[in-house]
């Protein structure tokens, strides 16, 4: 037995019907370190940790925790043994308070009653330790997504576990909260807690990691000390090839105005937004979380009630009240919330692909053509799937995103809105999606890209509209745009805004 490792996973094999998700994978974690798992979506990182904590049974392989061979059947067993996890998808009980969420299932009791006083006190103690300013009595649903994520993190570390798994913990956090999280991680390390960290964000990974393990397509590639690795080296190991260009921007002919938005309003979220969009153009929308970019797009697409302003397409005023109307006007929208309003998880890739285009298959529906269309897009976008009848829920995030992109491409829209198209997607798939967007613009489509990743917006867009608190604060051309300038407009305070207007 090797004392050096707190956790050893060896020769882990996990089979799903038709897919080998993990093929003889290993992971060795030293106590008091941050061990980062890297790999493209579908590489098997999440599956590996799910096998560890008993969310999914392993097909074969050995897991040794603190020197003993273990095999957890439920997450509760893993928790009791000292392995807790912050999940990628939040699962808060919205109608209960912050406090109740943190102590869910292990409430302090006084006799048969819950001891709310003690629960409350413990909760405040936890928050104080890490300087989190949240009222434990607040209902969960009133928190922002970022705060909910922090609560989830506090919950995971409050079990005093010896291993804490963090699956994309920062995807919903703002910069200050990321710093808070890193402080928490440093404290945990000092206490000898091992952290298994999963993230796609290179900068943060190199800031906090001690060890890095790389996986690709369910295979184990290598483990090394972070100091010995560079970003480029890791990317190369992840994709098994060099990525030459993350933003393959092609020059396209920019044509006449296709979409004109004038003084668009929707409640308090969108206030007097005006912009126009030309054929062959990629228009980026930048801003901080909550700047109203998504809300603006939802209003244009008919998902949100328009309370003022006008929208013109090809010079004609259009009145869109529902996504159905928008699609009729040949507008497509890849939404931000892939699981919430994107995929229908239990249905096949085929059904998910043709969903927005059902009207074109006639009566009775032409099932053969549906299958052909789906296959064509699976090939064109390089979607990795055993068959087109596989439920989309079984695919990795990046492949789900490709199916959704296929759904909109199939409707052949004049205007395609993509909201956070590469969130939670690995680098390889990211570059592929950027290429597709660029190609579409080349075909004369008009494209709007909303993204919180500045390099992405700057890389793909011809022009960048910057928003802040529901208002457009700036519009920058490709030549003049820079990260600093965008950030300046995104964080403008109100007095400066007035000066500009």
């Amino acid at each position, binding site marked *: 037995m090797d004392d050096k490792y707190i956790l050893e996973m060896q020769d882990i094999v996990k089979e799903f*019907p038709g897919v080998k998700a993990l093929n003889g994978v290993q992971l060795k974690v030293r106590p008091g370190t941050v061990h980062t798992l890297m790999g493209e979506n579908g590489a098997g990182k999440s599956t590996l940790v799910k096998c560890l904590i008993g969310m999914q049974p392993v097909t074969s392989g050995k897991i040794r925790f603190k020197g003993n061979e273990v095999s957890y059947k439920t997450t509760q067993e893993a928790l009791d043994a000292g392995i807790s996890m912050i999940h990628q998808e939040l699962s808060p009980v919205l109608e209960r308070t912050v406090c109740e969420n943190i102590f869910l299932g292990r409430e302090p009791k006084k006799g048969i009653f819950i001891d709310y006083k003690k629960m409350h006190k413990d909760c405040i103690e936890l928050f104080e330790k890490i300087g989190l300013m949240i009222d434990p009595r607040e209902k969960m649903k009133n928190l922002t997504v970022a705060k909910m994520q922090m609560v989830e993190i506090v919950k995971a570390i409050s079990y005093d576990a010896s291993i804490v798994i963090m699956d994309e913990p920062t995807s919903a956090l703002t910069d200050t909260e990321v710093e808070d999280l890193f402080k928490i991680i440093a404290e945990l390390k000092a206490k000898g807690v091992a952290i298994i960290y999963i993230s796609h964000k290179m900068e943060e990974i190199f800031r906090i990691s001690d060890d890095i393990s790389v996986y690709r397509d369910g295979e184990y590639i290598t483990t090394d000390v972070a100091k010995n690795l560079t970003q480029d080296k890791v990317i190369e190991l992840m994709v098994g090839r060099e990525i030459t260009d993350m933003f393959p921007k092609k020059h396209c002919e920019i044509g006449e105005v296709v979409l004109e938005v004038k003084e668009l309003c929707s409640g308090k979220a969108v206030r007097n937004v005006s912009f126009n969009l030309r054929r062959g153009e990629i228009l980026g929308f930048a801003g901080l979380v909550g700047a109203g970019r998504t809300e603006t797009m939802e209003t244009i697409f008919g998902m949100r009630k328009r309370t003022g302003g006008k929208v013109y397409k090809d010079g004609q005023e259009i009145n869109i009240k529902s*996504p159905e109307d928008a*699609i009729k006007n040949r507008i497509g929208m890849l939404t931000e919330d892939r699981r*919430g309003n994107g995929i229908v998880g239990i249905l096949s890739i085929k059904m998910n692909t043709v969903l927005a285009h059902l009207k074109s298959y006639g009566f009775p529906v032409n099932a053969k053509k549906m299958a052909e269309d789906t296959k064509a897009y699976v090939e064109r976008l390089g979607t990795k799937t055993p068959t087109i009848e596989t439920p989309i829920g079984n695919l990795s995030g990046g492949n789900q995103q490709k199916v959704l992109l296929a759904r909109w491409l199939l409707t052949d829209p004049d205007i395609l809105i993509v909201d956070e198209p590469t969130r939670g997607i690995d680098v390889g798939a990211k570059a592929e999606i950027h290429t597709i967007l660029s190609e579409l613009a080349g075909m004369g489509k008009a494209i709007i890209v909303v993204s919180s990743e500045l390099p992405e917006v700057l890389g793909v867009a011809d022009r960048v509209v910057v928003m802040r608190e529901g208002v457009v604060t700036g519009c920058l051309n490709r030549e003049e745009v820079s990260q600093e300038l965008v950030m300046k407009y995104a964080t403008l305070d109100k007095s400066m805004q007035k000066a500009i207007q």
Partner: protein
Amino acid sequence: MNAKRKKVISDNIIWLILIALVILMSIANRNFATMANLKTLLTGEAIKGIMAFGVAFAMLTKGIDLSIGAVAALVGAVTGGLVQPVDLATRAFPGGAHLAVPLSILLGILIGAAIGACIGALVAYTHIPAFIATLGAQLICRAGAKMVSNRPVSNLPDAYRFMGSKQFFGIPMIVIVFIVIAILAWFILKHTRFGMSLYALGGNAQAATVAGINVEKTLVKVYIWCSVMAALGGILLAGRSGSSDPSTSGIGYELDAIAAATVGGTSHSGGVCTISGVIAGILIMGVINNGLVLMGVDDNMTNICKGIIIIGSVIVDMRKNIQKI
């Protein structure tokens, strides 16, 4: 190979259970596997089956319809009342209201459609749970039926009873109607845009909206279909026995129909339903009903068996779905 065989078994488990039950019943009672008994069984289950095809659509969209038994009673009373002989002393409509049989049946279907449209609009536009909307509709329709007539609507003419009680080349008409509806339901689910949107709507209503499906209209159509099936059930029910008692007709049918759809693998959390599954569900419930009666098992034991089967089938089904994720 082993995995493949496992998948075949797991996909068809419901039919295997049905076959096992049939074999078991045939061994236990030699009167079970006879042509005459098969007819009895099918005639007995056909109406519940038709209503199960209706309610399965509602369940597919995460809904439910508790009103179908009462709608059947209301439509049975109205359509029956309109075709009773004019000189009958106990007529439901003592004045003169009288319609030719086809018109009366057509009116019955339209009443069903209208009730369904109301329920559907309530569910779609006010967002109240279907359970509540249809529970209310059940009370209202049952009361409506009793207001039409406070005694059984009887002496129904032969023409009206054609679908419910006649035979066509030795096959009961009621079974033929059941088969036609089964094919229609299968066609709608598998081969029309409407059917496909139901799966999307049940699987993820928000995603369906974003993909351009008009969720509200679709829901209205779902409950129209469901209530029309109930109306048809009511007409067949009155036709089968030649009279329709508004206070007892169709009572419990909603639960039997929901049970059959559930046993047939229709998920209450939406998005999962196959017509072949529903048929199997109906037949399983029928075989248990009929077989246990033949064996002389008392009514209470039969219901205990049915209860266990319903709960067991959902447990099996949920385990299957968990493994998939």
